[in-house]
């Protein structure tokens, strides 16, 4: 399984037999080879993070201020909302995920990235697709299905961008110089294999009526299954043990966790259609699969949290760990919540409410985005050879985003629950289910605005790093935050 092909100017020794300096040299050289494509993906991701956050904040405010910017079609809620969803998912999360994956591949394969030309082409094509798709949605051209609003030309560009990325990653993997394929790499490889057929089937227009609805929600949930979650887990499996310096708690559990994840999570999609005109047996299958997710989620929780809890001081001190451990804990939480939410008992109340929206944000922001923030904090000094110059800004970023998503989640969950209770009680007028949410929606908007502020601070820091601007620092952001001069 180890490769002997040599694409590298210096002869490579197997990593376990060489000296520390040699290993370090190789790592620095690989980090250099990966720098430009990684930064290219991340730069695009940053732009879409800001754009997507602004769309989200506007959409949220329109609930309490329905006449806000309501005279232009291009700014109507029904277009801003899908613009928000598609830019944060296919823009921020996906481009950041791709950029972090490129860097991780270098580390996990201990080999330089292959065919980087494909990666640059991917960045261009992908961002073009996002621009086109977002513009089309705002102009009034939508695919009409949630998570699939980008019309076909834009979807084709994004599919192409992903395939180019996947080909480069596979080539790199084939020329790897490691004997062992680390657990993060399983998740990444699975994502690379799963995403193209998922996206192509979903955009192929194979069905109509309720069959298409089943396909729609198989797709939307599977986007989390095959792309967002695997990348988040791959990061958590790498950064938590790597920063702490201890291997994960149980590799065997990691193996069990991966395969039960792959087996069960692919069946969850129809839990979005409980009570709907879909064959009951199929919906029940999805509910069962959603509950079976307890197995992989608990194995992952054991691995991530036990490893982190033994080193809580480091979690406080390291920006990477703060974000990644926060994210990993939210993964456990959102998954347990999701498994229970899928049951008919819960769905009767919370289906069609803000409860589900809050759950979605817990997953995509509190888990995936926070983990990606942590990953970027780790890799950027290594690819730019420049330390994060403003530790204060890192603190601001962490506290605004964590407080923001906590407020968002609590407000959306409480408001959504009350909304659902009012909705299923037919003795109450329907408008009660609307009016009861209004104060919670204000709080949710406040949370979203906090998140937006934090995101902007993060993007600003990224821009500073790319230019290697700001005060020169010899010690990592870790020691500056805690002012322990003797911290290694």
């Amino acid at each position, binding site marked *: 399984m180890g490769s002997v092909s040599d694409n590298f100017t210096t002869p490579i020794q197997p*990593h*376990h037999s060489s000296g520390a300096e*040699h*290993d370090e040299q190789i*790592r620095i050289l690989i980090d250099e080879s990966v720098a430009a494509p990684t930064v290219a993906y991340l730069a695009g991701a940053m732009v879409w993070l800001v754009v997507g956050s602004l769309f989200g904040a506007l959409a949220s405010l329109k609930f309490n201020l329905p006449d806000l910017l309501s005279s232009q079609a291009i700014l109507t809620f029904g277009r801003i909302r899908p613009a928000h969803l598609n830019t944060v998912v296919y823009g921020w999360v996906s481009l950041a995920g791709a950029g972090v994956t490129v860097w991780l591949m270098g580390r996990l394969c201990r080999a330089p990235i292959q065919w980087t030309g494909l990666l640059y082409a991917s960045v261009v094509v992908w961002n073009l697709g996002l621009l086109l798709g977002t513009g089309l949605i705002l102009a009034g051209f939508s695919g009409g299905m949630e998570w699939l609003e980008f019309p076909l030309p834009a979807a084709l560009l994004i599919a192409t961008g992903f395939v180019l990325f996947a080909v480069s990653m596979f080539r790199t993997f084939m020329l790897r110089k490691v004997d062992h394929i680390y657990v993060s790499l399983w998740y990444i490889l699975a994502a690379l294999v799963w995403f193209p057929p998922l996206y192509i089937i979903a955009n192929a227009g194979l069905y109509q009526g309720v069959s298409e609805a089943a396909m729609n929600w198989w797709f939307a949930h599977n986007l989390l299954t095959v792309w967002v979650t695997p990348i988040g887990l791959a990061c958590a499996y790498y950064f938590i043990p790597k920063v702490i310096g201890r291997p*994960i708690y149980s590799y065997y559990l990691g193996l069990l966790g991966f*395969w039960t994840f792959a087996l069960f999570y692919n069946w969850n999609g129809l839990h979005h259609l409980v009570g709907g005109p879909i064959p009951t047996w199929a919906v*029940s299958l999805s509910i069962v699969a959603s509950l079976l997710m307890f197995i992989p989620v608990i194995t992952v929780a054991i691995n991530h949290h036990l490893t982190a809890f033994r080193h809580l001081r480091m979690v406080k001190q390291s920006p990477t760990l703060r974000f990644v451990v926060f994210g990993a804990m939210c993964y456990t939480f959102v998954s347990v919540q999701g498994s229970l939410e899928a049951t008919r008992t819960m769905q009767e109340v919370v289906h069609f409410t803000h409860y589900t929206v809050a759950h979605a944000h817990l997953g995509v922001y509190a888990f995936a985005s926070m983990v990606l923030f942590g990953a970027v904090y780790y890799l950027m000094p*290594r690819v730019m*050879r420049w330390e994060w110059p403003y530790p204060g800004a890192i603190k601001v970023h962490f506290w605004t985003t964590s407080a923001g998503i906590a407020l968002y989640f609590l407000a959306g969950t409480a408001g959504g629950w009350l909304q659902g209770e009012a909705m299923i009680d037919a003795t109450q007028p329907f408008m009660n289910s609307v009016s009861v949410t209004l104060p919670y929606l204000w709080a949710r908007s406040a949370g979203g605005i906090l998140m937006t502020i934090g995101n902007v601070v993060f993007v600003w820091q990224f821009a500073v790093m790319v230019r290697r601007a700001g005060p020169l620092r010899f010690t990592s952001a870790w020691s500056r935050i805690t002012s322990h001069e003797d911290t290694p």
Partner: protein
Amino acid sequence: MLIVGMGVVGGSLALAAFLWAVRNGQFSAEDLHEGGSAIFDSSDPPDTPTNQASARHGKRVR
């Protein structure tokens, strides 16, 4: 009740398949015991936290 039953059956089948795979040597012993250490090497050994950047040499890089 049906759902719980389906869950138990499905989960047991999956577990059985997994245990078969492990026992039939799909995964080597050394993978399971040493796989977790694959992210370390002699320059980043275990028990050394790595939140340092590679710029720890202190050079200003432009």
